[in-house]
């Protein structure tokens, strides 16, 4: 998802450090926010944890909104016809890495749920698994955020230094 603004039709130029920091903030804040919202913390903490969780999720979405208008997000999400050959080459390489990482994470998640179910059925351990619709909503939107931001994060990880990119304006 790339949001084109009138002032920055090619996306806002963020340094690779900024993109990596924003991506990290999206993942960390969303994960922590969902944990505070959904994990049973006892009646004393429940209300304040719920508010803190909501604030963290809102901050995560704000970081995502900044990323959605960046030039690296444009490179990751634009149709092929809008990119030049270097951008297409880098995007294809990043998409391959991002897909491999995403598929691996999803596979690990499914594996965890299978093991947790087996242990619960055998009565050996009670590991947390998503059960309610709120749990599955959190998992779904988390995976959605990951799928939308991972290619841009990989592009930032593999792109040149910020100084070099600034010099490209000359």
């Amino acid at each position, binding site marked *: 998802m790339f949001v084109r603004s009138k002032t920055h039709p*090619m996306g806002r130029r963020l340094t690779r450090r900024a993109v990596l920091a924003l991506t990290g903030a999206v993942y960390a804040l969303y994960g922590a926010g969902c944990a505070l919202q959904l994990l049973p913390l006892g009646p004393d903490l429940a209300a304040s944890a719920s508010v803190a969780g909501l604030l963290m999720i809102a901050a995560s979405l704000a970081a995502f909104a900044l990323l959605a208008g960046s030039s690296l997000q444009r490179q990751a999400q634009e149709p092929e016809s809008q*990119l*030049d*050959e*270097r*951008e297409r*080459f880098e995007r294809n390489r990043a998409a391959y890495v991002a897909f491999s990482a995403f598929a691996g994470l999803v596979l690990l998640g499914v594996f965890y749920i299978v093991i947790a179910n087996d242990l619960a059925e055998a009565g050996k351990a009670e590991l947390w698994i998503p059960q309610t619709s709120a749990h599955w909503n959190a998992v779904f939107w988390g995976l959605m955020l990951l799928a939308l931001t991972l290619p841009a994060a990989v592009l930032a990880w593999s792109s*040149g230094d910020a100084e*070099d*990119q600034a*010099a*490209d*304006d*000359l």
Partner: protein
Amino acid sequence: MIHNRLSVFRAERGLSRKDVAEKVGVNPQTIGYLERGDYAPSVELALKLAAVFGVRVEDLFSLAPFAPLAKALRKSGEA
């Protein structure tokens, strides 16, 4: 790695990266990547760039490093 003299020809013609990028239809950043040797162009892009500067592709790109400009000038002066 592909070596190039893009920045030399660009400076000689007084063109900015944006000017060159517009002539060959790429993002100005891509010209920077090419000049630094961070990206090897396709044959099509190399031919387009050579056409912009009015030189042969092998004058612009090479598999071996280009001789320093001072050395080349000295050599042409001796000839």
